[in-house]
């Protein structure tokens, strides 16, 4: 099974230090955006990553490609330890692993033509050496994403949102990547255009054998495109499994609440549906609750939840369906009692702090 995995993360952490103002800029705690994620993405699959805003899903996507530096853990891409790569090797990784961004209005340079935008990765990576070959490749890429190659000399403002997103996809595909991270790639598009882009992504995946990480807050869309779904909450993956299992038979109360909150376009069903309305907002990732991080909003929290940090364990009826929830048996790491580990800077932060203070002088 292991050679089936294209990308894998182990104990991945991205902590952003919180610095107090003033001359010394001391570090006082950290925003734990990604906080111990284990994740395997299989070759050729689409893994959907869902969660509310602030849960760390975009940071995770960025950290997998080292667009933000992980502060802990490892990422392995096709057997290569991404976290140990130097600059030159990182460039090769970026060719093989691309990114499609959310906002096609902000992610394209307004002063570059479509051809310039799409051929830039070819130049950077030294692919298709001469100008004529590159132009041919650009036409090919535009056709691949359903744009007329004749538009190559136009500028982004001449395109609609959906067309711009196609340009963004063409750019991401230029280096013939194995892996694409689509970060909210359809969020800013209208419904009818979303469908066009979703269909395009699926078609491209089948044709080019791509592996996709599809990050979105839209559960209906994710369930539609993904083979497997991972649900994130406060920096952790709390449930993962085949799309039909996670979407149809969720085992973690958070996933259940999230699914029940997604409105469906059937009036009768909407009126009769039992909805779990979660109280309150997501806690700050700078002050993550002890034990299970969902316990402060969980309708079924019980004794072990504050004391044991739940690990992912097999749940439900289907193989490969995992959830981090004590309702399925108390499995995980006991929390250190509060009197031995007061809230605030962790020992690791404290160790790093002097260096930062020194640099700020």
């Amino acid at each position: 099974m292991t050679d089936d995995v294209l990308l894998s993360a182990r104990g991945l952490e991205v902590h952003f230090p919180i610095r107090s103002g003033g001359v010394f800029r001391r570090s006082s705690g950290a925003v734990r955006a990604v906080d111990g994620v284990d994740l395997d993405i299989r070759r050729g699959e689409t893994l959907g990553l869902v969660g509310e805003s602030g849960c760390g899903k975009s940071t995770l996507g960025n950290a997998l490609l080292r667009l933000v530096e992980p502060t802990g853990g490892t990422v392995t891409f096709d057997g290569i330890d991404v976290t140990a790569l130097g600059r030159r090797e990182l460039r090769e990784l970026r060719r093989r692993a691309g990114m499609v961004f959310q906002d096609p209005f902000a992610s394209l340079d307004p002063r570059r033509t479509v051809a310039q935008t799409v051929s830039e990765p070819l130049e950077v990576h030294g692919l298709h050496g001469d100008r004529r070959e590159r132009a041919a490749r650009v036409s090919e890429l535009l056709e691949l994403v359903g744009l007329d190659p004749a538009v190559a000399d136009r500028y982004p403002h001449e395109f609609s949102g959906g067309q711009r997103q196609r340009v963004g996809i063409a750019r991401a595909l230029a280096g013939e990547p194995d892996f694409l991270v689509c970060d909210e790639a359809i969020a800013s598009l209208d419904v009818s255009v979303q469908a066009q882009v979703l269909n395009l992504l699926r078609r491209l995946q089948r044709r080019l054998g791509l592996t996709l990480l599809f990050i979105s807050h839209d559960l209906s869309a994710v369930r539609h495109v993904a083979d497997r779904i991972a649900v994130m909450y406060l920096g952790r993956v709390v449930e993962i499994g085949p799309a039909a299992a996670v979407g149809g038979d969720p085992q973690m109360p958070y996933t259940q609440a999230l699914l029940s909150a997604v409105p469906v376009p059937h009036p009768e069903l909407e009126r009769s549906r039992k909805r779990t309305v979660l109280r309150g907002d997501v806690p700050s990732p700078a002050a993550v609750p002890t034990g299970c991080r969902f316990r402060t909003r969980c309708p079924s929290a019980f004794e072990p939840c504050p004391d044991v940090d739940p690990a992912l364990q097999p749940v439900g009826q289907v193989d490969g369906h995992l959830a981090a929830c004590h309702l399925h048996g108390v499995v995980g790491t006991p929390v250190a009692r509060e009197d031995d580990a007061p809230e605030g800077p962790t020992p690791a932060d404290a160790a790093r702090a002097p260096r930062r203070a020194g640099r700020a002088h």
Partner: protein
Amino acid sequence: MSAPVLEVEDLRVRLRTPRGTAHVVNGLDYTVGPGETVAVVGESGSGKSVSVLALMGLLPSGSATVTGRALLQGEDLLAMSPDRLRRVRGPGMGMVFQDPMTSLNPVLTVGRQLVEGIRAHQRVSKQAARARAVELLAEVGLPDPARAVDRYPHELSGGMRQRVMIAIALSNSPALLVADEATTALDVTVQAQIIDLVERLQSEHGTGVIWITHDLGVVAGIADRVLVMYGGRCVEDGTVDDVLDRPRHPYTRGLLGALPDLAEPLADGSRRDLATIPGVPPPPTDLPPGCVFWPRCPVRGDARCETEQPPLTVVGSGSAALPHRAATWCGEDSR
């Protein structure tokens, strides 16, 4: 049925733009009854936001021309003096916009903003207005309202800011509440909280609600009636069950088909492609002469589609009071 809160007749909005006159809203007719929720659905550029901004008198008077009638409790909003309109806005109608961060003033506390709205329309002391502000924040479910009243918008989460917006909109108990994509920027869990809140307040106060959204799932949950807009026209309206379960206009059908549906079981292995509507909506400066949807329509079932504008006519079932209407030349069986 009691007298409607709002009656809109033949509402038209033209905007002067550098690219010529934009026909943004082209003849809307609808009513909102007390306690009733009318959802206005459509994609960006369909004219749904402009149509309510026009009612509120919030379009730039220099470049916008608004015609038609809009009776709020019998009084025509479009014929009012700016002064009268200002007085009607609080107790007559409240509005909640999409982005609570840009619609709240970042340098004033939540309390100041609420008090300002209350004192603009009611003769009460500052203390009384402040007490009312705390009450309102409690009513919209803000935790610890006595302290929240002294907070600045940036200290609140998106969901809490939207609750503040709703508190402000409701501070003068308006007869009509307009929510323009009020939950679009929020997470689904928070969206569910806000929808619950509006429904509760609506049933308590009998407020009529216009809910503008592009999310047909939200519509299914909250609306009594639905109005589907495209190219500045109403292309279909009726009860929520009629429009979403038995859509008649090819555009409505297209929208529903393009939507990934969480309620639909996943077939193993083979997943269907989503239905798509090719192309993009027409620019309001250059609308097609016939059916507005014709250039993108997969049916085009009638010779008149290209040249003649279809009127909004009664289709299918629906009662006389709540008719199901669609503006299409395509008959029942043209799928």
